[in-house]
Every structure is written in C-alpha cells, then in structure tokens.
C-alpha cells in the first residue's frame, strides 16, 4: 500500500506539478487545487491502465475514484484485486449519436 501511495503521488507531482508537490496533501482534491484538468484526467487514466494493467470503465471516471492521491490508491487497490479484462468499444445506435 505504501508503495502504491508513493508511486501515484510521484506520478502526479512529476507529471502535473513539475516536481513542486510540497503543498499537496494526499487527501487534497486535484480539481480544487488546480492540479489537473480533463486532459490530465485522460493522462492519469492512461498511466493507470498502462502501468498497472487494469481497465478503467467509463462509469468509474468519477472524482470519488480519481480526485486525490487517497482516492486513487483506494480505487486502484480495488481494481488490482479484481483485475478485469478490457471491454470492447461501446456500440451505440446512430439515432443516439
């Protein structure tokens, strides 16, 4: 657990805060602190999927899972315990697009 916490925090601080992470508590909201935007969320998800080989579903893209180091650790710990397979692209009817 400690390593996951450190790894995720290092990624956030290095990638989004240019190494200046002293003011970020593990419970701080990334959005409220202005740490990441929507493109940053996509980067974060890609990092999680590629590094930890898990698939993040669309309905899991909520601040409760991704908006702080603590939330990330809890979410990823659950995902690692489940280890899902990638889902196919969602097919939607033309009329719904």
């Amino acid at each position: 657990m400690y390593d996951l916490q450190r790894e995720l925090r290092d990624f956030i601080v290095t990638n989004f805060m240019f190494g200046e992470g002293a003011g970020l508590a593990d419970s701080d909201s990334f959005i409220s602190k202005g740490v990441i935007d929507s493109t940053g969320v996509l980067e974060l998800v890609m990092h999680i999927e590629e590094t930890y080989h898990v698939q993040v579903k669309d309905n899991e893209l909520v601040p409760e899972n991704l908006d702080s180091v603590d939330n990330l650790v809890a979410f990823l710990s659950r995902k690692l315990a489940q280890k899902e397979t990638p889902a196919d692209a969602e097919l939607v009817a033309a009329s719904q697009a």
Partner: protein
Amino acid sequence: MDQTETIAVLSNPLTLDVAAEAQRIEASIREMVFKRLKRKGAVIGVSGGIDSSVVAFLCARALGPERVVVLFTPELDSSSDSLRLGQSVAGALGVRSFVEDISPILKGAKCYERRDEAIRQVFPDFGPQHKMKIVLPSIKEDSKYSLFSLVVQAPDGTIHKKRLTADAYLGILASTNFKQRARKMIEYHYADRYQYAVAGTPNRLEYDQGFFVKNGDGSADFKPIAHLYKSQVYQLAEYLGVPEEIRQRTPTTDTYSLEQTQEEFYFSMPLPQFDLCLFGKNNGLAPEEIAELAGLTTGAVERAYQQIDSKRAVTHYLRAQPLLVDPVTECEMHA
C-alpha cells in the same frame, strides 16, 4: 447587487437595447480600426455561422461595405452549407468576397494524415470512408468528469463511440488546429494586401471559456462581439438583418467530418442555458436562481459554475500575451 436589482435582472437578464448596442459597437469599430490600429478597413472570415455573420454586418455598417473584405475558407470536411450561407452574407452586404480552398495547405501540412493516425490509436480500422467527431458528455447527466469521446461512423452507417486516450485526443486536436491556423494565415494575407485589420468573431462564451485555437481563430486585431452573450448575438443578428437561415442554424464547429454541435464539443449544455450560467456566475447569482431560470437542476448549475472556473484556468495560456523576462515599455509609447 441588491435583491430588487437581482429580481429585475432575472426577469430578462440578457435582453439588449439592440439599436443602441449596434450603434455603440459600430462607433467602437471605427475608433479601433481607423484611429488605434490605423488600418483602412477590415477582413472577416465568414463561416456561415451567426457570430461571423454579425461581425461582417457590424463592420460593413461601421466602415462602409467598400472597406470590408469577406473570406470563405472551405476544406475537405466543411459543410457545403457553410460556403452558401457565407456567400449570402456577402451578397446582402455588397462587400468584396473571396473563396480560398485551404485543403491543399492542410494536405501539405499533413493535417488529415496526422489526424487519422491519431484516430487509429483508438479505432484501428478508421479509413477515408469513415466519418468522425469528438464529443463531451452533457453536464446534466451526472457528476462524472467531462471527458472527450470519439464518435466514428463506419461506411455502413453504424456509429461507434469510444473514450479517447490522452495521446489520441491531443493528436487529433493538434492536427485539426491546422485548419483554424491556415484560415488565419489567409486572413492576414488579405489584411496585408489591403492594409486592413483582421476582425475576430468570438462571442463572450467562446472568449471567456477559451473556445478557440491560439494563433488560429483566437488571433485578430479586434474582437467586436467578445463582450456579448450568445443570445445577445442572436438579438443583434435579427436587428441587423442577418439572413434567417443563418439565425436558425445550430452552431457547429465545422471542423470534423460528422456534424458536431458546439454543445457536444465544448459547452456540455445548450448554449442558451450556458449563457444563463455564465451570466449568473459573472453576477454572483446563486445556482438556485439560475437553475429556475434555465430549467436546470441546482446540481447542474453548480457543475457549470465549476466548469466555468476550470476552463478559465486551463485556457488562461490561450489568452496570454507572450511573456518577457523584463518589460520592454519604450515601444508602447507609440501605441
């Protein structure tokens, strides 16, 4: 704002005195173009949409139609309606107009090639017969993040939708931004040719929320409707006599091969509702007040308020002037 003022504003918060506002903007255009910029007229890229049409009308009224050049810059993914409607504006105003197909410039810059390569990161089978657009979820849906998805229409007509990766999103965005930048390059060619100023066409929503491409449609010498909410642009359009078909048209980006509204690409809710949310935010109104006026839930307005702040922060870079290590003030004395 006290309670009486708040109630008065909320009864019809975005209604303009259109005649007075048109007169005020036209006086400002003359001041900006002739006196401050010292240019002989204005160049406007007209897309067939409401904003650029209103700017063309205002410039023609302010400067005289003989001092206005209107440009149409279609490319492979443009709707044929855009050129036809743009030409109806030029015809109504009696201004000079030119058609410049920017497809060869875009092919030379590998715009389409780079874009398709990025798309294939998400849809490996994407080819020339496919169509695509990028969409955001509606802000009304729930409290999920507002993340881009790619919608692809296969040659057999089936529609597929998939969340974008960061790499694919940035690759598509960086490629398609060539379009706005190529258009601006053409506009400045005509500006140089005639010693004119380039008019920018953002409304307040676009300017405030950074819905433009830096050094693309965000670049201009003056922006005469950047202070107007979208519904105010429509009011002005009716007063100025902008062709009705343009006033009835759904605002699109006209950037991707599948038709894409500005709502689904950027604002996440219908523009009249976003107008009210931005007005409420700017005037310190509680989400409950705007929710009732806009027909939204209080939660949706709260998310819109958060999104407004978030987009202002993220797009600050787009509006920023180039930064200097030390100020160089001497040349500003000649402004």
